[in-house]
C-alpha cells in the first residue's frame, strides 16, 4: 500500500442553475489573457448537448483517454509512444479552433466614432484570431438550455449511443447542467501523452499541472485528455489547464469556481488513495466495474492501518484529520451518492458528481403527482428509464444500477426530511428501503441541503518548511503585492520579450495578470499584433476606471496608458468618466 493524498471535488448537479458564474470568475482569474480567449478551465454545458469542445465525448473520433489493448493491457487510446513521436509534426487528432469556437469581440469604437447618419451605428463582431469581421456561429455554450434543439442536440454523442427513439422523447423529459473542470485524474492520460514530461501530478495533493518551462508545445496532451480540459495557448505555444487554483488551496481557501458558485453546490476535500493499485483498477476489463474499482482505490481514513501507512508515507497528521472530515469522502463512500464522470475513459477522474433528481421530480409534479412522496418518487425513478440510461452513460459507463440507487437515496432524503420539517412523525421505513439509517439521512441532508461553508470545504493547508498557514497566506499576498512594484523585465512588464510573445523570464502570475489587463484596456486594435500586445475587450473590463479607449479622448487629453497608481487608488483624473449603469 502506498498512500497518497488527493484534492478532490464533488458537484451536486441538482443545485446547478446553469448561471455560468463559475466559468466567468475562473476566466477572470486565470484565462483573462490573449492566446487563451477560447479557454474555459471551467465550463458549464447543458445536457443533452454537444459539450465543449463540440462532441468531445466521442472517443471513437477524438481518441482521448486510455483503452485496453488486445492483450488486455492499459494503453493510450490515441496510440503508444512511438506513434506519438511520429505524429508530432502534425497531430491528426487535435481539435481545431472551429471545434471550440472562434473568439470575438465587438467593434465598439464605431458606436462613438461613426459620423452623424440616418441609421444607428452597429458594433460588428471582430474575430480575436484574425482581426477580421466575422459571423458568430458558435461559442462555449451555444446550445445552452437546449437552444437550437433538436437540430443541435441530436449531435450529442451520448444521445447517439442511446438510439433514435430516445432522442425525441428525451427533449420533453429531461435537461440539466453539467459544470466541468479538469478532473485531476489519478491516472492522467494528459500527462502520459506529453512527450516532454511537462505535465506532472503533485505528490502532496495530486493536482495535475503543466510545467510552463518544460512544455514545448507538442500538443499531444490535448488529444490525450478525454475531457478536453487541456487547452493550447496559441500565443505562447504552451498547453494550459485548470490548476485547481493551487495558490488558493495551498493556503486553505477554496477554488475560485467553488467559492463563487451561486448554487453552493461544490464540495472540496481530500481523499487518501492507494497509488500502487491505480493501474490495476484502471485496467478492469468490464467497464461497468470501473466505478467500483475506482471507489475501491480510496482508503478509509478512519482505518488505523491506513493512518499508519499514511504517516509512513509522510502525509502530515492534519491532512489525515482533514481526510476524515472530508465531505468528498463522505459523499462518495459513506452516503454513496457521488459518481465519477465517464469512468470508462479509465483516467480515474477525481471530480465526482451527484446526479440530478430534479428532472424526475419535475416530471412528477408536471403530471400532477406529489414530487416529494417516496412511493411516487421511487416509482418514477423506475419508470423514467431514459433519463437514467443517459445519466448512466455519463457516470457509470452505462450501468443503470448505481445511478438508480443514488437517485433513490436522494428521493428518500427528500421525503423523509419533509416529514421532519413539517413536524410529522418521520417514516423510518424510507431510509431502510435505501439501506441507510435515519442518522445517515439527516447527516446527508445537512451536507447537501444546509451545506454550510465549513462543511463544504475542508481544505488542509500546504506544509512548507518553517512556515505556519497564516504566514503562508501573508506570503501569498506578499508575492503579489511586492512584485508588482519591484519586479522588472519579463513578459509581464511591457510587451513581448525579444523572441516573440512567449519569451523572457517568468513573472509572478499576479503581476502578469495585472499588466495584461492594463494593456488590454489601453489598446486600440482587436487582435494583438504578434510583436506587441494591444487589445480592447469589454469582457475583461473590470468596471473600475473607464478603460480609456472606450471613450474618445476629451480635448486636451492624450490617449495612452492610465496611470497605474491612479487606477489602483481610484482617484480618477478629471478626464476619466465613471462607468454608468
Amino acid at each position: 500500500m502506498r498512500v497518497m493524498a488527493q484534492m478532490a471535488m464533488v458537484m451536486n448537479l441538482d443545485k446547478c442553475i446553469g448561471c455560468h458564474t463559475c466559468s466567468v470568475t475562473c476566466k477572470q482569474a486565470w484565462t483573462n489573457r490573449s492566446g487563451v480567449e477560447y479557454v474555459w478551465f471551467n465550463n458549464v454545458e447543458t445536457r443533452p448537448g454537444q459539450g465543449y469542445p463540440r462532441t468531445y465525448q466521442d472517443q471513437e473520433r477524438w481518441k482521448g483517454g486510455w483503452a485496453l489493448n488486445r492483450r488486455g493491457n492499459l494503453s493510450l487510446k490515441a496510440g503508444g509512444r512511438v506513434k506519438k513521436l511520429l505524429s508530432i509534426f502534425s497531430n491528426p487528432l487535435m481539435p481545431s479552433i472551429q471545434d471550440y469556437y472562434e473568439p470575438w469581440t465587438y467593434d465598439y469604437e464605431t458606436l462613438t466614432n461613426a459620423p452623424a447618419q440616418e441609421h444607428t451605428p452597429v458594433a460588428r463582431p471582430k474575430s480575436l484570431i484574425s482581426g477580421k469581421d466575422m459571423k458568430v456561429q458558435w461559442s462555449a455554450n451555444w446550445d445552452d438550455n437546449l437552444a437550437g434543439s433538436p437540430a443541435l442536440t441530436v449531435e450529442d454523442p451520448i444521445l447517439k449511443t442511446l438510439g433514435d427513439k430516445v432522442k425525441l422523447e428525451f427533449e420533453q423529459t429531461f435537461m440539466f447542467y453539467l459544470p466541468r473542470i479538469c478532473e485531476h485524474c489519478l491516472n492522467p492520460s494528459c500527462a502520459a501523452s506529453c512527450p516532454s514530461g511537462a505535465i506532472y501530478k503533485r505528490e502532496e495533493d495530486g493536482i495535475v499541472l503543466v510545467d510552463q518551462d518544460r512544455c514545448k508545445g507538442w500538443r499531444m496532451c490535448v488529444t490525450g485528455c478525454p475531457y478536453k480540459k487541456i487547452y493550447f495557448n496559441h500565443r505562447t505555444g504552451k498547453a494550459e489547464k485548470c490548476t485547481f487554483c493551487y495558490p488558493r488551496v495551498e493556503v486553505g481557501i477554496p477554488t475560485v469556481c467553488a467559492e463563487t458558485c451561486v448554487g453552493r453546490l461544490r464540495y472540496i476535500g481530500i481523499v487518501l488513495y492507494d497509488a500502487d493499485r491505480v493501474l490495476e483498477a484502471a485496467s478492469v476489463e468490464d467497464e461497468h466495474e470501473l466505478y467500483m474499482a475506482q471507489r475501491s482505490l480510496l482508503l478509509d481514513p478512519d482505518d488505523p492501518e491506513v493512518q499508519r501507512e499514511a504517516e509512513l508515507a509522510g502525509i502530515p497528521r492534519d491532512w489525515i484529520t482533514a481526510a476524515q472530515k472530508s465531505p468528498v469522502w463522505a459523499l462518495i463512500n459513506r452516503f454513496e451518492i457521488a459518481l465519477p464522470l465517464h469512468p470508462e475513459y479509465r483516467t480515474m477522474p477525481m471530480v465526482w458528481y451527484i446526479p440530478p433528481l430534479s428532472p424526475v421530480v419535475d416530471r412528477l409534479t408536471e403530471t400532477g403527482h406529489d414530487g416529494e412522496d417516496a412511493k411516487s418518487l421511487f416509482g418514477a425513478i423506475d419508470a423514467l428509464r431514459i433519463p437514467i440510461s443517459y445519466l448512466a452513460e455519463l457516470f457509470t459507463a452505462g450501468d443503470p444500477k448505481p445511478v438508480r440507487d443514488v437517485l433513490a437515496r436522494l428521493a428518500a432524503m427528500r421525503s423523509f426530511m419533509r416529514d421532519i420539517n413539517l413536524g410529522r412523525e418521520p417514516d423510518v421505513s424510507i431510509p431502510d428501503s435505501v439501506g441507510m439509517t435515519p442518522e445517515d439521512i439527516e447527516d446527508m441532508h445537512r451536507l447537501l441541503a444546509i451545506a454550510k461553508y465549513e462543511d463544504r470545504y475542508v481544505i488542509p493547508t500546504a506544509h512548507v518548511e518553517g512556515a505556519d498557514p497564516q504566514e503562508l497566506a501573508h506570503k501569498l499576498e506578499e508575492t503579489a503585492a511586492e512584485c508588482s512594484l519591484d519586479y522588472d523585465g519579463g513578459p509581464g512588464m511591457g510587451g513581448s520579450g525579444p523572441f516573440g510573445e512567449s519569451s523572457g523570464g517568468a513573472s509572478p502570475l499576479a503581476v502578469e495578470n495585472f499588466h495584461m489587463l492594463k494593456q488590454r484596456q489601453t489598446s486600440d486594435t482587436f487582435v494583438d499584433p504578434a510583436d506587441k500586445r494591444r487589445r480592447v475587450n469589454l469582457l475583461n473590463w473590470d468596471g473600475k476606471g473607464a478603460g480609456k479607449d472606450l471613450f474618445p479622448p476629451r480635448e486636451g487629453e492624450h490617449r495612452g496608458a492610465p496611470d497605474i497608481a491612479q487606477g489602483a487608488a481610484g482617484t480618477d483624473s478629471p478626464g476619466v468618466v465613471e462607468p454608468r449603469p
Partner: protein
Amino acid sequence: MTGTELLLWVIVPYLCLAVFAGGHVWRYRYDKFGWTTRSSQLYERRLLRIASPLFHFGILAALGGHVMGLLIPKSWTEAAGVPEVAYHAVSLTFGTIAGVGTVVGMALLIYRRRTVGPVFSATTRNDKMMYVFLAVTIVLGLVTTVLTNLTGHPHDYRETVSPYFRSVFYLQPQGELMAEAPLGFQLHVMSAWLLLAIWPFTRLVHVFSAPVGYLTRPYIPYRSRDDVAGSRKVKPGWEPVATSSRRP
C-alpha cells in the same frame, strides 16, 4: 590561405559557432518559457497535415545525409569497398528525394503562413527573418546538388567541403579547401554558418528539445511541490525582506 579565405571560412564560422553554442546556453538559462515550437495547428490543420510532416521528415533525412557526407571521410567508405560512382548515385538519389520533400513542404508551409489569416498574424518579425535564412540555405543546398550533377561532372564535395568541415572541428581549419569548391557550395556553406548564428534566437531552438526521453520515461511523472508558497518562485535578488527564520 588568403586573408579573404581566412575571414570567410575560419573567422566567420568560428564566430557563428560560438554564438550558436553560447546563444543556446544563454537562452536555455533565461528563456525556457519562450523555448517552444509555437505550433499553429490550432488555427489551420488541413495544409499543415501534409506540409509539416513532409518538411520535417524531409529535413531529418537531409540531416542524416549531411552527417554521412560530412563526417564520414572518403577513405572510410573506400576502405569499406564502396565505389565512388555508387556512393554518388545513392547520395544523389536520396539527397534529391529528401531535398525535394523538404522544399515542397517548406513552400507549402510558407504559403500557408502567408495566406491563412490567423497564422500570418501570429508570425513575428523574428520568424520572417528565420524563414529567409532557412529557405536560402535549403534551396541553395538542393540547387547545388542538382545542378552540379546535371553538368555531368559532379563536384566531389568529399574532397573539399567535407574535410574542411571536419577540420573546423579539429581546430585546424583548412579554409583553402573551401576556396576550391564551386560557388554554389560556398554559398550554401556560408548561409548555413549564418543560419547557425541566428539559430538560438529563433523558434528553431525547438530542434534541441526533440522528446526522445519519452520512449523510456514512466508514463506519469510525479513531482513535489516547490517549497515556495504563492504563485511562483521569487527571482534571485528579489527575495522579500525577512529574518532568516522566516525564509523558506
